[in-house]
Structure formats: structure tokens, C-alpha cells
């Protein structure tokens, strides 16, 4: 299966400053991939390289099986720093940007109206962009990145400045896009949204990859050997469990090294403990993010 994005040892410098330092990762077709990192980590530079705006100084980048520049018509882009033609009508902006991506006007006009309806902006189609609220402009820019039916869409901070209702709307649309087969690459600071949407993530700090892989596996790996257990019973000593604590009416069990959760579950049942809920704990992404970035900063 061809990868949607393939980055191999990417390096990008600004003068003496290395913004992206030998970065490698892949994005699979149809997945929602999260590109995370603190401010100044090199996310936007990486994205601009993928979009063909910057050439890489070193390394290789392939997008949809070709060079970033050649892939441009098949890629949609919502940049972090937003802006539109303020004096143009909403629909005119969409048609112009779609036409630059190679979509004929008659086709893009129909799609523009359909998308405007989907994000509840149809009544504003013939208004000037400057008359739209910030949130409306945000939604307009979101659909501007999708109007030409791309195979890959790169969304840099798509939820920035949106109210909870519109966050939910955009979140739903992103899920729909992925379900329709589009690959979504997402950069966001709201970790809860990344957790809710992304299949896999790449965390970068100071231009380097510090965490990469399946979000579920990463969360489990960083949760340590921890199990959350709900039970009305008082727990006896269980083989393989080194520490037990009560958290909000539940138990949190810390397992011995190399102890498998399934074995502990068997031990609990053997000991006659009534089990209402049993869950291998996963660390919140935000905690993982903060702990890794802080640990790296301390090392430096």
C-alpha cells in the first residue's frame, strides 16, 4: 500500500538555525495523523515542506507518491496563520482557490455551495469576507482547503478560535473526511481533540521526532503497568500487584515488571473478587506531551 506521506531524514535550516533536524515519518492513506509539538518545534516548517512551499535542505519528501510540488493539486491546506481576500465575496474566494488547484469553475461552484451549506454559511455566500465573524472566516478557510476534493488534507490548528459548537462541527467533518478515504494530517494544541481524532501521532521537539506511532499504543506504553479496577469488595493481596491505591471510589493497581494484566485479572477472579470494571490504564496525551517535552528541555 502506497504511503500518503513519506518523510526521510528531512532537514530544513534558516541560516544557522536548524528548524527540522533529520526527521522521518510516514502517514498512511485514510488515517488521521497528528503532528504535535510545542511552539517553535518545527511543525509549520515540516508542513510547509510537505506542501511544496519550501524545498528540503536535506532528505527526501514524497507526498501521494510524488514530489510535494507535483502533488499540490491533490493536497488541501489550512495554514495556522489564516487570511483570506477580505474584499471578495465568500463564493468568489472559494472559486478562485479551487481554480488554482485545477478544478473547473462550474464544478467548484456546485461544491462551494454544498460545502457552505454543510458548515451553515450558505446565507453568506454572496457577502464579503470582511463581513463574516472570525469563526465564520475560520470555517470558510476550512472548506477552502477541501473544495477541490483533495486526497490529502493538512490542517494546521483547525480548531483555533472556534466556539465549542463549531469545534464539534469541524470534528465531525474531519471524521467524515477520513471515513470517505481522505488522509488527514492534523496539527493541534488541544490534546483532547487529538486523542479523540487521531489514529497515529508524531511528537516533535526542536525539529526532532521524540514520539511516533499508534496513539493507543503510546498511551498504554506511557501509562506504565497500571490497571483501573471497579469493585465493591475489599481487595486481598494479589500476586503480581506491587501497589494498590483508591482513586475516586475505584482502585488503581500498579503491576510488577513484566506482569501481564490478563494474569492479574485471572488472579483477581481466583481470589473471588467481584469485578464491575477492569481497564488497562492509558496516560492522558497531555501528560505524555508535557513530560516528554520537559524531560528533553532538562536534558538540553
Amino acid at each position, binding site marked *: 500500500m502506497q504511503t500518503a506521506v513519506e518523510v526521510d531524514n528531512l532537514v530544513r535550516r534558516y541560516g544557522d538555525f536548524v528548524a527540522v533536524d533529520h526527521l522521518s515519518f510516514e502517514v498512511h492513506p485514510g488515517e488521521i495523523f497528528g503532528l504535535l509539538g510545542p511552539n517553535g518545534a518545527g511543525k509549520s516548517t515540516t508542513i*510547509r515542506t510537505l506542501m511544496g512551499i519550501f524545498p528540503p535542505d536535506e532528505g527526501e519528501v514524497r507526498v501521494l507518491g510524488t514530489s510535494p510540488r507535483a502533488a*499540490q493539486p491533490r*493536497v488541501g*491546506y489550512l*495554514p495556522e496563520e489564516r487570511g483570506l481576500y477580505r474584499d471578495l465575496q465568500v463564493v468568489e474566494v472559494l472559486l478562485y482557490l479551487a*481554480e*488554482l488547484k485545477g478544478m473547473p469553475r462550474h464544478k467548484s461552484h456546485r461544491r462551494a455551495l454544498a460545502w457552505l451549506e454543510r458548515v451553515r454559511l450558505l446565507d453568506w455566500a454572496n457577502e464579503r469576507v470582511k463581513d463574516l465573524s472570525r469563526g465564520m472566516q475560520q470555517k470558510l478557510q476550512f472548506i477552502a482547503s477541501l473544495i477541490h476534493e483533495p486526497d490529502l488534507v493538512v490542517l494546521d490548528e483547525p480548531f483555533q478560535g472556534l466556539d465549542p459548537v463549531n469545534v464539534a462541527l469541524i470534528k465531525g467533518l474531519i471524521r467524515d473526511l477520513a471515513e470517505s478515504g481522505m488522509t488527514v494530517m492534523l496539527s493541534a494544541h488541544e490534546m483532547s481533540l487529538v486523542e479523540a481524532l487521531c489514529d497515529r501521532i508524531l511528537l516533535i521537539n526542536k525539529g526532532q521526532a521524540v514520539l511516533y506511532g499508534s496513539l493507543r499504543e503510546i498511551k498504554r506504553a506511557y501509562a506504565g503497568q497500571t490497571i483501573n479496577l471497579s469493585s465493591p469488595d475489599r481487595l486481598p493481596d494479589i500476586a503480581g500487584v506491587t501497589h494498590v491505591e483508591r482513586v475516586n471510589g475505584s482502585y488503581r493497581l500498579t503491576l510488577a515488571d513484566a506482569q501481564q494484566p490478563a494474569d492479574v485479572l485471572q488472579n483477581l477472579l481466583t481470589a473471588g473478587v467481584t469485578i464491575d470494571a477492569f481497564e488497562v490504564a492509558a496516560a492522558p496525551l497531555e501528560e505524555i506531551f508535557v513530560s516528554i517535552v520537559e524531560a528533553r528541555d532538562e536534558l538540553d
Partner: protein
Amino acid sequence: MNWTRILTIARHEYLTNLRKPRYLIFTLSVPALALLTVAVGTVFGSEALAALESQLVPENQVVGIVDQTGELLPVLPAYDESIRAYDDEAAGRTALQEGTIRVLYVFPEEFIETGAVTVVRLDAGNSFDAPTFIIGEYVRERLLAERLDPDLQARVLNPLRTTTEITLDGSDERTGDASSLLADFIVPYMFALLLAITIFSSSGFLLSGVAEEKGSRVIEILLSSVTASELLTGKVLGLGALGLTRIAFWVASLGGLAYLGAQVSPLPSFVSLEGVITVDLLVLSLVYYLLGYLIYSLLLGAGGALGGSVQESQQIGSLVSLFAALPLYLFAFTITNPNAPIVRIVSYFPLTAPTAMVVRLPFGTIPPIDIAISIGVCVLTLPLIVWGGAKVFRAGLLNYGKRPPLAQVLRMIFR
């Protein structure tokens, strides 16, 4: 380079700027002004100039004189309405007080020897107003009236009534009276000025457009769809066509108005285009417009990309405009002698040549070598400007924040 995308950008730039009020107002104002002139000429006919004059000068033009020399009276019949004689200064002062006359000139006995005269006014006013010229003309005419034969007197008073100007090789011949001086000045002046302004305004649209796109960050979306070179080329083509549209509209509307006006009533000679705006001049002006526009727009586009804000981009653009406008500062030299050495020199540099030639062309015959050199330097420099301008444009577009120093700009070009 993808020409479909370039033409999309060109069309977008053309249509969006065509609708801008500042473009429409300036484009429509020129034919509107011409229409007004034709309308005045049509309504007032030969009285148009007199009507115009009556709006500009005071109603009472009568001058009083007190002649103590015995040489200036009686008043010549031609001046009956404009000059009134008084026996003494007291009578003249009374007439001035009553408003019968506008100003009183007292010529003492020794006036012929000294030329000294006393002028009495109601209040301190402009001493170079219309009566000053009337009385000067009258004194000359009156003193010569009985001393010279009429022809000789006419030549003394108006030595060069008509002039026929020819070139040494006979390639040009023009005959005119006093009013053709106006035609020789006003029409070429307006032509040169409007063309120069069109070059600057079309290039200025490019600068402000790039600065706005960079400031609003639209540029990032554009560059994810097109290359910087495609973007620059599209903008240059679209806005160049916009400038040509303005020129074509002016030529068509002014030509049409001149033709229609001439059918209704003879136009005042100072608005006549005949013999002043020739086909040669139009073709050459078009060539210099295109060269000037390409050079200035590429430089201004690069300048616009360098600025961190619209204001900063305009500051950078003003440096380019300073060079481009240099020939306009030499206008005074150009209109008296379009082949003056300093004017010729600025025609040999690519940054000043287009404007210099646009200004020179309407004011006389330009040596063919100057035309060849000026076009040559522009054509030869253009690829360099395209190459360097595109590099700076590309590098400057995503250079947010502070304006890069000159050393960094040079690195952008030669990297």
C-alpha cells in the same frame, strides 16, 4: 511554469482591481474632464476662452490714467473701454474711490526719460494683475502710434506672430500661432503625465496586492497551489492588462470626444490633438509603457514581498519609485529642450529610461540613437530584473517579521 494557473491569477488580478474605486475614479476622470472641455467649447463656441477668462479675472478691468507728459493722450480708440483719462490725480482718485476704475496710473512729466510711474490702488493687491499688462501694452502702442508705419509698429509689438519650425533634415515641419504654444505644451504635458502615472499606478497595484496578501497570510495558501514565479507572472500580466485597458479607454474616449466635439463646433486650438499626438508617438509610448511597467512592477513586486507589513512594503517601493520618477523632476528641462544632455543621460539607464522617454517623446523629435539605446538597455536589463526580482519575491514572501537587511536581500538573489 503552468500557464493555466498563471492565466487564472492574471484574470483574478485584472477583475478584482478593475472594480476598485481608485482605479475606476482615475480612469473615468480623464475622459470626464475632456467631456467637460468639449461641452464648454460646444456651448460657448469661440467665446469659450473669454468665458473662462471672465471666471478667472475681476469684472472691472478699467484703468485710469493721468498723463502729465502730453505723450499718452488721446486714448487710442481700441482702448476706449479699458482706459479712462483724468485731468489730474485728484479726479482719478475720486473715480478710484467710486469704483469707476480699478487702478490709477499717474505718468509724471519726466516719465519718458525715467520710466517712473505712480500707481494708486484701493488696497494692496497683486501688482501683476491684468491692468498692469493692459497699461504696458497701451503705453507701447501709444508711443509708437505716430512714429512708425503700421507694419513696423506691428512687428515691434508682436515680433513673431506665427512661427514655422522645421528640422535641419526636413523631417518635421510645424506652423502655429500663439495658441498652438498651448497645444505644444498642454497636450504633450497631459499625455506624458497620464502615461507616467499609469505606469506607476499599475505597478503600485502589484506592490499593494503582494503586501496585502502577505500581510493577511493568503500568500501561504497561494504558494501551496502555485509557484512564486507563477504568482508573480500572473500578477504582472493581469495588472499590465489593467493598465493597457485604461490607456485604450482613454485613447478611444478622448479620440471619440475630439471627433464628436469637432462635428458640433470647432474645438479651441489648445485641446486639438492634430499634429501633436501622432501614430509614431502612440506606438513608441506603448513600447515604453510596456518596458517601464515590466521593470517597475517586477521591482515593486519584489519590494512588496520583502516588507513585513503593507507600510514597510510601500516604503521599499518608494525607493524604486524615486528612480522611476527622476525624469519627472527634470520636466522643466524636458519641455524646453527634450534633447538636453541631462535628459538624454537619464534616458540611457534602465530604471529611468521608460519614464524619461515617455516624457521626452511628445515634446519634440528625439534622435533615433536615443530611442535605440533606451529600448536596448531596458530589453537587455529585463531578464536580469526578472531573474533577481523573482528570487527576492520568492524568498521574501514567507519572510514574516522584520524587513531583511540589504546583505540578506543580496544573499536571496545570489544563493
